[in-house]
């Protein structure tokens, strides 16, 4: 047994153990914290599977931003948690049976694989040079399955609208109450002044390098979102009112740019979301930059939550 093999087995066992621990954990807050740990372990597992793009996404979004969303949800639900009772026995039994059915279904798929696994990977790799990109994941996201990526960004905006719609009518257009998380805290302020320059450079690098290496708009945008959240939480920068017109343009800029490039494909190339020959890579990079900015703003506002007080100019 080699050391990498032992490491992989250890990671897999640890993942199962942490997953089980998450289910039996007392209290939502504890379960969420374990979920974050689970996400980081999962990212290590993806690296071991050579899926660095997925690992970056898992660490940044699966564990980072989602963890923060779940933490604030858990904090909001804390009052209700004490009074809530266990669901009735039939419901628990039914959910247990359904979960077991899904698990055994997955087990069957894993244990009895098809002789030839259906895959489009060779085709994607063969056609990659035409896009001018070096990263096959970026090729799939922006050339072969561009429509999925476009719709994914629109779904993000819909999710943000869902969060905003939690605000009562009188606070519509107000400010998310992020800076009220903590009282003025000199250490947090220091952190919020030191880290963002590094974070922003890193986000730009990640977005830029996504065309030829692991990385891309989503990961870069997430880093941007986290830097923005940090400065808002520390009170270095004030959270914007959600009625701010510039903010709303920033939110839709990426998807609109992507859509415009896609529509231009009708006139200049083979059709919707097709790129004119030779210009695929520059167009994709431009779209990625726009998307990174929009994703950063969207994820930051998603985690900031619904507006909780009126805007005082």
């Amino acid at each position, binding site marked *: 047994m080699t050391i990498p093999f032992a490491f992989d087995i250890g990671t897999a066992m640890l993942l199962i153990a942490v997953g089980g621990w998450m289910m039996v954990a007392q209290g939502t807050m504890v379960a969420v914290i374990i979920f974050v740990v689970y996400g980081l372990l999962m990212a290590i597992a993806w690296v071991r599977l050579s899926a660095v793009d997925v690992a970056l996404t898992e660490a940044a979004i699966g564990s980072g931003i989602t963890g923060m969303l779940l933490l604030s949800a858990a904090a909001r639900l804390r009052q209700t948690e004490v009074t809530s009772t266990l669901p009735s026995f039939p419901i628990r039994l039914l959910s247990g049976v359904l979960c077991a059915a899904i698990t055994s279904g997955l087990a069957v798929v894993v244990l009895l694989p098809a002789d030839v696994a259906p895959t489009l990977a060779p085709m994607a790799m063969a056609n990659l040079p035409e896009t001018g990109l070096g990263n096959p994941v970026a090729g799939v996201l922006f050339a072969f399955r561009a429509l999925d990526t476009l719709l994914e960004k629109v779904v993000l905006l819909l999710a943000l609208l869902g969060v905003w719609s939690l605000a009562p009518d009188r606070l519509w257009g107000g400010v998310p109450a992020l800076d009220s998380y903590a009282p003025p805290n000199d250490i947090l302020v*220091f*952190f919020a002044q030191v880290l963002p320059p*590094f974070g922003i450079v890193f986000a730009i690098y990640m977005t830029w390098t996504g065309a030829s290496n692991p990385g891309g708009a989503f990961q870069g945008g997430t880093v941007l979102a986290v830097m923005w959240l940090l400065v808002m939480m520390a009170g270095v920068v004030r959270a914007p009112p959600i009625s701010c017109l510039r903010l709303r343009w920033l939110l839709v800029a990426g998807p609109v740019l992507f859509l415009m490039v896609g529509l231009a494909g009708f006139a200049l190339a083979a059709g919707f979301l097709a790129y004119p020959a030779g210009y695929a890579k520059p167009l994709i990079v431009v779209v990625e930059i726009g998307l990174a900015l929009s994703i950063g703003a969207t994820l930051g506002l998603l985690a900031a939550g619904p507006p909780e007080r009126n805007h005082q100019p």
Partner: protein
Amino acid sequence: MITILDTLTILAVSAGTLFFIAGTVGLLRFPDVLTRLHALTKVDNLGLGLVVLGLLPHASGLLGALKLVSVWLLALISGAIVTQLIARAIR
């Protein structure tokens, strides 16, 4: 053939691992949050620092070495600040 640099790597990484183990034991065994944080900072600072130091001779060129050192520096600053924030939150 083991060179002097290899010996340095083995010694430093082993020492770093020792700090990781000691820090983990401290995290599990110490009685309250402040002492547990104290144990944890040793892992961040010395444990990771020694591992990075040990890996430096095997880094791919100056740029690779710089990357390793900046990983350590970022872990240092975020570790130190998060520890302070947690300690203040429980006070």
